[in-house]
C-alpha cells in the first residue's frame, strides 16, 4: 500500500510555484510503516498551510533506496531534511509536533 499512497502525494507537492524563495525538503520514509504514513500526512498539512508560495518536496523510500539513504546519512525513519534555504536542518519523527517542525524549518517566525 505504501508506494501507491506515497507517489500521488509527492507529485502535487513537488510542483514548482516559481516564486522567490523555494524551500527544498526531502522526506525519508520506510514504506508503509505507521510513522512514515503519519509523517507524510503531517508534512502535507504543514506545506499546505505554510508553504503555499512554493516548495519542493522529495520523498525517498528507504526500503527502495537503502544505499542512497545511507549515503545521505539517514538513520531513523521518518526523517525530514531541509536542504535550502540554509541553514539546513533535520527533523526526525512522524512530525506530529507541529510547532517543533515549524521551528526547525524556520517557518514559525514568518508566521508570527
Amino acid at each position: 500500500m505504501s508506494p501507491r499512497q506515497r507517489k500521488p502525494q509527492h507529485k502535487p507537492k513537488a510542483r514548482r510555484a516559481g516564486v522567490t524563495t523555494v524551500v527544498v525538503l526531502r522526506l525519508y520514509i520506510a514504506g508503509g510503516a505507521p510513522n512514515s504514513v503519519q509523517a507524510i500526512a503531517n508534512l502535507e498539512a504543514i506545506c499546505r498551510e505554510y508553504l503555499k508560495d512554493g516548495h519542493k518536496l522529495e520523498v525517498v523510500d528507504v526500503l527502495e533506496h537503502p544505499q542512497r539513504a545511507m549515503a545521505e546519512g539517514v538513520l531513523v525513519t521518518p526523517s525530514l531534511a531541509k536542504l535550502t534555504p540554509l541553514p539546513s536542518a533535520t527533523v526526525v519523527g512522524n512530525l506530529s509536533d507541529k510547532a517543533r517542525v515549524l521551528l526547525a524549518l524556520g517557518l514559525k517566525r514568518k508566521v508570527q
Partner: protein
Amino acid sequence: MRAKNGQPLPKLATGIEGFDELSRGGLPRHRTSLLIGGPGAGKTVFALQCLVNAARQQRVPGIFVAFEESSRQIMANGATFNWGLASLVPKKLFFLDAHLSPTLVKAGDFDLAGMLAMLAAKKKEMGAQWIVFDGIDVLVTLLQDPVAEMQEIYRIRDWLADNALTAIVTAKIENHTSAVHYGFLQFMADCVVRFERRHEDRVAAQTIQITKYRGSSYAACEFPVSFGPLGIEVGAAEAAEIEHRASSGRVTTGIKRLDAMLGGGVFRGSSTLISGVPGTSKTTLAGMFAEAACRRGERALFVSFDEAAEQIVRNLSSVGIQLRPHVKSGLLRIYSARTGGTSAEEHLLKLRSLIREHQPRCLVIDPLTAIAKAGTLGAARSVANRLIYMVKDEGITLVVTALSETDEPQTESTDLQVSTIADTWIHLSYLVRSGERNRALTIIKSRGTWHSNQVRELVLSKSGATLTDVYTAGGEVLMGTLRWEKEVEETARTTRRRAEFNQKRRELQFAEANLSDQIKALQADLERQRAELALYSGENEVRNVSSSDRENELRRRRSSGPEDRSLRKAAK
C-alpha cells in the same frame, strides 16, 4: 534449548581469549547476544573484537552500528590494539554512524524500519554475517516511550532472525531494575553476558559473566577480564580436572649439590618454590636455574618484578652468573614489570602473552609474591594458582620465588598459598650466631623424589652459589666461621690425640721392653741363685760327712774324756 533435530546449538567462536572456553564454543550463531554493563566495562571492545576476529581469521565481514560513540572514536580506540583495524575497513568491516546529533530535532515518534532496511542492503552488498548494535540503550532512550522501546526491540529481533545474522547488542545498564527495557532486551537475547568494572582495594577489577545462554551450558561464575595487545582477554577457569604430563626427566637447578639433595635435580615441568626473607639469595638461585637452562640450549624466560633487567644481569654477574650472553643470543628473555597499579590479572595475561611469544622451556618469576601488591589477596591467590597450572599445562619447568616477611617457613604458606601447589619447596633462611649471618637452605618438600632433610649452608662466591657440607657437631649444624673454627679445632684435636697416642704407645712399648729385660735379668739371677743353692747344699753334705769322720778320728786319737764330750756337744 536444543535445535529441533537434537543437534547442539550452533555457535560461532569469538576468538576472544578465554571466552570461547567459558561459553563452550562462542556466541550462538544467527542469534542475538546481549552485552550489558556499566561504562568502561569493555562491552564495545568485546563486540568490536568479535567482528575483527571474524574478519581476520575467517574472512567473514561484519557491520558495526555505533549508537553511542562516533565511528571515528571507535576506530581510534580500536587502533590501540594490534588488530590492523584500518585495513579491514570498509570491505570486511563496515561502520555505521548511528550517533544521532544532539542538534537533531525530534518531532514525533520514529522507528528503525528505515535503518534496518539500509543495514539489510549493506549486509547483502558485503556478505556480512556478524552485526553489532553498540549502545542500543542510547537509541532506545531517544524513543522516550516504553511502548515504542519494546516495539523497536522486537523489530530488531525479527529483523535479525530474518536476516540470519549473528548479532551482538550492547547496552549500558548498571542497575538492572531501573531500566525499563532491560527485560525486553534480555528476552530478545539468547545469550546475555554481563560486564562489570569495580574497585577492589583501589585497583579496578573487570569481570565478565554469562548470565543466560539458551540451549547451552556455560561457566556461570564471574571471570576476570583484562586488556592485552590483542584486545580483551578473559581469565577463563582451568579445567576442573588436573591433567599434566608427568615427566620423570630431571633438570638441574644449576647447583650440583642442590641437585644431589633433590635426588638429581627437579622434575622437568615441575614447579619449584624458593621462599625466604629479603637477602637470602632467592634471585641468585633463580638466576642459576635460568643460566643452567640456557647452557643446555633451552629457551628461558626470567620475569622480574620491580627490578630492571639490566640490574639483574649486573647483580648476578657479581656472583658468577652470566646471563648477558644468553640474552644476546636470544635464548633468555628478561622481562621486568612494575607492580604498582597493575592488578594480578593483568600480570597473568602479560605473562601468558610473553610465554606465547618466547616459548620458554624454563620460567622464573621473581618474586611471585609481587603480584599481590595491588588488589586483593584473594585475586592474587587465584592468579598464582592459575599461573602455575597454566605453566604446567605447557610443560614448562617453573621456579618462583616468594618473599616471606619472617624467617619462619610456615608463615609463607599463609600468604599466596603457593607452597601447596608447588612440587618442590626450598626455603632459604639466615642463621645468626656469634656475630655472623649465614644463609641456610632447607628442602621443605619435594614431591616424588628422595631429598635430603638436612639444612645446608649456602655460600656465595664469585663463581656462584654452592652448598657446603653439613657440619654436624653435638647434634647441631654449624655454619660460617663457626663451622670453620669447629673444623680447625677438630682437626687439631685429632692430630693431638694421635700424637698423644703414639707417644703413649712408645712409652708402653719401652716399659714393656724394660720389664722383659728386667725379667730376663731376674731370671738370670734366679738361675744363678739356684745354682748357688745347689752348690751350697752339696758342700754341706760333704762337710757333714767329713765332720763325723773327723770326730771319729779325733775320738780315736785323743781317747775321749769328759772335756771331749763337752767339746763334741758344742760342735753339734
